[in-house]
């Protein structure tokens, strides 16, 4: 194969790649326009109908049903001694925001024990740390790796840098700037001079001496007891560091050598308003809760220093519980239900649909349990409350909205390759990557043809069109088969690419009378050569 042939192949493949990329984007833009435009038109057309139906009277509930609704919707609050109170809000008059919120408190037997203005509630309940302790959800108060990626995005205004300003003891100000490439902090003084580099082993005076922290995952500030300056809690894949920028110290708080850290959550680490602190009877301890991929959780508490490694009796507990470390002990609250969502629901939407169909429209039991955790991390049940969830609150099959139907129809024109990638890598991979600001993963999650049957049928139809077009124009079997396979793989974008790069004029063969392309000298059907034009008087060149 000589250089000319190689360059010819490179040129042809470049054209194909360029055209398919452009068409994939064009098809995607058309899909978005179709979905948005049709849903907007549908919304406008159905607005009047919706307004009329909203004016119809709603169904009246019986007293027993009202009671079930109230119990289900009320807050299940525990006192430190384990007593449960059901707290329900009486609500405000619509559009009267100046009204004070009133509440009713019932005991476990549904006897009213107190009612009045919420702020005058005589009881102080245990409060729980953040509920969002799940691997794929965002932390609202912390700085995650997703936010870090957003900062580094090459926008027209350039990327941004993460900086931690620190007031030094001598009144000067320092700034510690995170260097994402080397996973280090670089310290500056106000005059621009460099203080040094902070890494996993502490302060170093040169970049080469400093050891990197590792791949960043999460950051949050942390106030040690009595300190006015915060230290920073810095989480990597397997380690958790406490960084005190003022003292220029780094301390390894936790290391998980065998498994990645799944989540880190803080409790009472931020400074509390002193007035509010005085009024509180329950004294909470600063707590860091760490979950790893091996289903173990670690509680690191202060005042006094204490570490507890907790193993759960059931793997699925870890997603529906919360801790509160107080002066009186460590408490654990656990919510559960008799109808649990299938564990593999992310991987199998069919399984999830089956589960919903089985329980739709049926009341079910739900319960909440309060445990006290001793110093050996054993659980002691303090109280348990069970109630019936009204059927209206049960799982519901998502009715196919118009938008969803249009979306599924439009995405059927996408390439089946997206579905293949989805199957190969799994939904968890794409969810994690798209949350980490990976553009391609987000795109694939959005535009993959979920309705595989329609997508396959459409792909076959595209192949049929390509075949009809290509048969009279074919120059070689290999080329025709390649383009048919290409169209099958890329669906509409594949067909458009094929047409863009292969369309030629056809003529009627003077011998067999059927259509034939002009690229091939011989007719693809009868083998006859192209007709020689008749000589005319004005022709200057004649065959001799």
């Amino acid at each position: 194969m000589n250089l000319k042939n190689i360059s010819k192949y490179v040129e042809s493949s470049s054209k194909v790649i360029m055209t398919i990329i452009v068409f994939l984007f064009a098809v995607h833009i058309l899909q978005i326009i179709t979905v948005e435009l049709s849903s907007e038109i549908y919304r406008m057309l159905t607005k009047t109908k919706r307004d009329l139906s909203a004016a119809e009277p709603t169904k009246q509930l019986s007293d027993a049903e009202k009671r079930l609704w109230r119990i289900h919707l009320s807050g299940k609050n525990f006192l430190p001694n384990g007593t449960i109170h059901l707290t329900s809000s009486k609500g405000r008059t619509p559009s009267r925001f100046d009204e004070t919120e009133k509440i009713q408190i019932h005991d476990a037997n549904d006897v009213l024990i107190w009612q009045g203005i919420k702020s005058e509630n005589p009881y102080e309940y245990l409060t729980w740390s953040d509920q969002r302790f799940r691997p794929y959800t965002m932390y609202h108060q912390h700085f995650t790796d997703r936010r870090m990626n957003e900062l580094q995005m090459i926008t027209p205004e350039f990327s941004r840098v993460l900086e931690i300003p620190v007031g030094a003891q001598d009144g000067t100000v320092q700034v510690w700037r995170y260097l994402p490439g080397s996973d280090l902090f670089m310290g500056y003084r106000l005059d621009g001079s460099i203080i040094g580099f902070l890494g996993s082993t502490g302060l170093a005076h040169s970049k080469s001496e400093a050891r990197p922290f590792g791949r960043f995952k999460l950051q949050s500030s942390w106030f040690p007891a009595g300190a006015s300056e915060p230290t920073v809690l810095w989480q990597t894949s397997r380690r958790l560091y406490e960084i005190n920028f003022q003292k220029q110290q780094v301390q390894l708080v936790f290391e998980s050598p065998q498994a990645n850290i799944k989540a880190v959550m803080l409790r009472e680490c931020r400074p509390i308003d002193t007035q509010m602190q005085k009024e509180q009877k329950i004294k909470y301890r600063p707590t860091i809760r760490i979950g790893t991929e091996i289903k173990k959780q670690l509680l690191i508490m202060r005042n006094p220093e204490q570490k507890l490694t907790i193993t759960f009796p059931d793997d699925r507990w870890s997603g529906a519980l919360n801790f509160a470390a107080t002066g009186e002990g460590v408490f654990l609250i656990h919510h559960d239900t008799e109808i649990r969502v299938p564990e593999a629901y992310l991987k199998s939407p069919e399984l999830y649909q089956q589960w919903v169909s089985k329980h739709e429209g049926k009341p079910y039991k739900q319960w909440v349990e309060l445990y006290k955790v001793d110093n050996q991390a054993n659980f002691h049940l303090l109280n348990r409350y069970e109630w019936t969830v009204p059927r209206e609150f049960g799982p519901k099959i998502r009715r196919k909205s118009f938008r969803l139907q249009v979306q599924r129809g439009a995405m059927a024109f996408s390439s089946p390759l997206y579905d293949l990638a989805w199957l190969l890598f799994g939904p968890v991979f794409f969810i994690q990557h798209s949350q980490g600001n990976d553009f391609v993963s987000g795109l694939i999650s959005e535009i993959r043809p979920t309705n595989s049957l329609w997508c396959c049928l459409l792909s076959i139809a595209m192949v049929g069109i390509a075949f009809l077009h290509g048969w009279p124009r074919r120059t070689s079997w290999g080329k025709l088969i390649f383009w048919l396979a290409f169209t099958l793989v890329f669906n509409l974008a594949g067909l458009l690419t094929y047409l863009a790069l292969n369309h030629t004029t056809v003529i009627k063969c003077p011998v067999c009378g059927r259509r034939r392309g002009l690229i091939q000298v011989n007719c693809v059907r009868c083998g006859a050569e192209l007709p020689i034009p008749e000589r005319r008087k004005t022709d200057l060149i004649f065959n001799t």
Partner: protein
Amino acid sequence: MRFSALLRKELRESLPWMLLAAIVFLAIGGFLLRQAQLGGWYDWSERYFSSRPTYGLQYRHSPLQPIGPVLLLTSLGLGLVLGVRHFWIPYFTRTWPFLIHRSVDRKTIFWAKLAAAIIAFLISLGAVWAAFYSYSCDPERFTMLPIKRVFIEGWLFVLLGLIVYLGTALTGLSKARWYTTKIFGLAFATVIICATIFEWRIGWAFAAIIIGAVILLSPIIDTISNREF
């Protein structure tokens, strides 16, 4: 010798646009940078430490932030204008036949045009960008200095201009109709720009630009070597 003669000719034709781009970028960019310096909004120490004990992370833009859009737009504009000047204007002035009937290979003509475009980008945008960066790196002018990554991102913007140049060249050379594949060169350049601007990994952004350039160069070379003018 022939190449250098062609290069001089292309540079001579590109000179007005080079100068215009350099002046626009220098004037607007310089004004914005000076405003950022004089305005004092960048002096975070006063802003964040006057109300102690306020504490928080700062997601800081570089002092070169306002220059970014100017650099990007000027670069894209220069790419478009040079592409039009090198590959479209010869159609209108009917000078293609004069050019390709010189005793040089057609590819040499293309390389001379590309070299002229690269030089134009280096001088009119690259040099000015480097000057702005070094200006903002002086601690006496700005409290905090920009990081090296911003400098690299600026060069990415310059390279995006070259991608637009190649896209315009392919579109200009194509014999297809406007509503068919003729526009694909520019459309592909747009895709590469989007892929770069929404990326947060510098390496991936460079990879997208290099792959895009190779994909555009290959059909350009083939077209200029084989098409009739």
